[in-house]
């Protein structure tokens, strides 16, 4: 029998807070205002492992090589260069009695593809209860508000059908959903940013956390997957405007052609 329970305390301060990866504010020496390209921050990126006391943390390289991460007392982890680019996995696991908690986060390192496809990392069984991005965003694509993104929930490598999953955002939104028979769930990311300014680089990303839990043979499993999401560019981009500019091009094209045909007719008659 499966006991389902809501993901605990990501934002609401419920009885049990969940193990969870979050970005940490950079140290004053790491701050730099300039655009840093795809992936940025070659000097290392800091993360916070929430409720990470007693947890084991690792970084998984795109080739599935695993390396331990040092978590300090405040839960802070500095993820530096690994010699590989592209997507890595931040993995943390905490076992307390019959309760097993896992936190997952895909972290993009630098700006070029590595020797391995992210599909290898994404599809690899990493823990008993797992939330898998389907697909993980790639370059030139991000999680953005007002867009739908798919995920798959697996237990022991098999899809969990009809299973509840909760999405909570750092902007205060909460969406509850249920996986379909293939274990798939799609979330339409909320447009819950306030004070949106025009331009991608003028808006800081927010965080969303997917959480799910499952019980099997008297043992409970709780997993979170966290990721940043960005303001939808539709706030400063207009499809209607683009269409209008295209139509102006169409009309101009006709006018120029007509003129050119007329002058060619005149030249022909002369």
């Amino acid at each position: 029998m499966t006991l389902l329970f809501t993901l605990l305390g990501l934002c609401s301060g419920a009885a049990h807070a969940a193990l969870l990866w979050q970005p940490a504010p950079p140290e004053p020496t790491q701050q730099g205002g300039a655009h840093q390209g795809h992936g940025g921050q070659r000097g290392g990126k800091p993360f916070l492992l929430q409720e990470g006391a007693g947890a084991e943390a690792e970084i998984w390289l795109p080739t599935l090589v695993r390396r331990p991460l040092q978590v300090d007392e405040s839960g802070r982890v500095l993820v530096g260069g690994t010699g590989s680019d592209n997507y890595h996995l931040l993995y943390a696991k905490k076992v307390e009695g019959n309760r097993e908690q896992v936190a997952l986060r895909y972290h993009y390192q630098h700006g070029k593809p590595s020797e391995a496809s992210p599909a290898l990392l994404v599809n690899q069984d990493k823990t008993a209860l797992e939330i898998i991005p389907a697909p993980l965003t790639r370059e030139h694509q991000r999680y953005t508000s007002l867009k739908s993104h798919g995920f798959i929930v697996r237990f022991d490598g098999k899809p969990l059908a009809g299973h509840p999953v909760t999405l909570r955002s750092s902007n205060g939104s909460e969406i509850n959903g249920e996986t379909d028979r293939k274990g798939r769930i799609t979330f339409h990311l909320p447009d819950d940013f306030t004070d949106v300014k025009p331009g991608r680089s003028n808006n800081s990303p927010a965080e969303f956390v997917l959480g799910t839990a499952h019980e099997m043979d008297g043992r409970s499993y709780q997993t979170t997957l966290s990721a940043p999401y960005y303001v939808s560019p539709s706030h400063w981009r207009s499809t209607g405007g683009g269409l209008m500019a295209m139509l102006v091009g169409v009309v101009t094209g006709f006018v120029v052609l007509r003129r050119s045909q007329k002058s060619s007719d005149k030249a022909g008659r002369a």
Partner: protein
Amino acid sequence: MFNRINLSVLRKLVQLGAFVFLVYGSVIVGFYTADKISVAFPSLTCAYDMQSADYCTLIPFQHQMDHRVGAVLSAGGTVVQALLPTLITLGTFLLLFVILNKAFCGWICPLGFFQEVLSLIGQKLGLRRIESLPQKVVDRIRPLKWLILLLLVFALPLLTGLGIAGHEAGDPFCKICPSRILTTLANGDTDQLYLDTSSGGYLFLSVVANFIFGLILVWGLFVRQPFCRICPMLALHAVFRKVGLVRLVKNAKPRCEKCGLCAKACPMDIREIHTEMEKKDVLFPDCTLCGRCVEFCPDKDVLQLKYTALPLLRADPAYFKKRKKAQTTWEKSNLRNLLKRD
């Protein structure tokens, strides 16, 4: 049916296959960047198309100028350090380019194929088409592809990397590239058809992009290959065309001076293919290796499409007659003539 197959028909079939593969090919090669064929492809297949099989080489060039070359030079690094990723991209591009040379334009490019489809629609509607542009116009247009390559693919992104230009100029060619709009729309994604009001620079680039796409939609019906003539990929191909294995060779005969059918057949209006009487290598910078000049050459072996020394297609009087007849039949069968008959 096989009787109707000529080089142009074969090329259209290859173009259709290449279009489907490049625009929707992620289902075969994979979704992620690391799965793509080369990430330095020699034709306009777009990274903004989430289902694409590969990315065009102009994308990494712009990114490297912006994020790598500019950044390394600003930090006091050497030119070699700064250019190393660009050289790797160039090497990858050349590995592919050598195989087909400029035929990547005439046989593979999704945007090139789209323009040919527009041209076919124009023909079938019986529109009054401009089969060849005036020489003056062609001469004025030709330098634009070099200007776009140097300015939009290399100079402006470099200036952004050096902190001189704004972030809008980081990948300005992608911002105006019609293939970005075409290939995403082909996937039912309207996200790339936008007017960006976040800054003056982005607004300008987005207006230009949509305006150009609108122009192509109209001009493609009346004029052959309107965008190809100013495409920076054509210029990049022109730089390396001597190393490609596909060649266009001419053994000029005195009759060539009076003929000129090859130049008329050329969709890029390369009159030099007719006027060149001495050089054997007639692969000119604007050539897309479509092979129409060879098809419409009535004199035996005067023009040849070769793969290194191996002839792929030779001009042949019998082929010419058949091809010309097929073309006349094709052109006559259009909506205007159909309505006239009724």
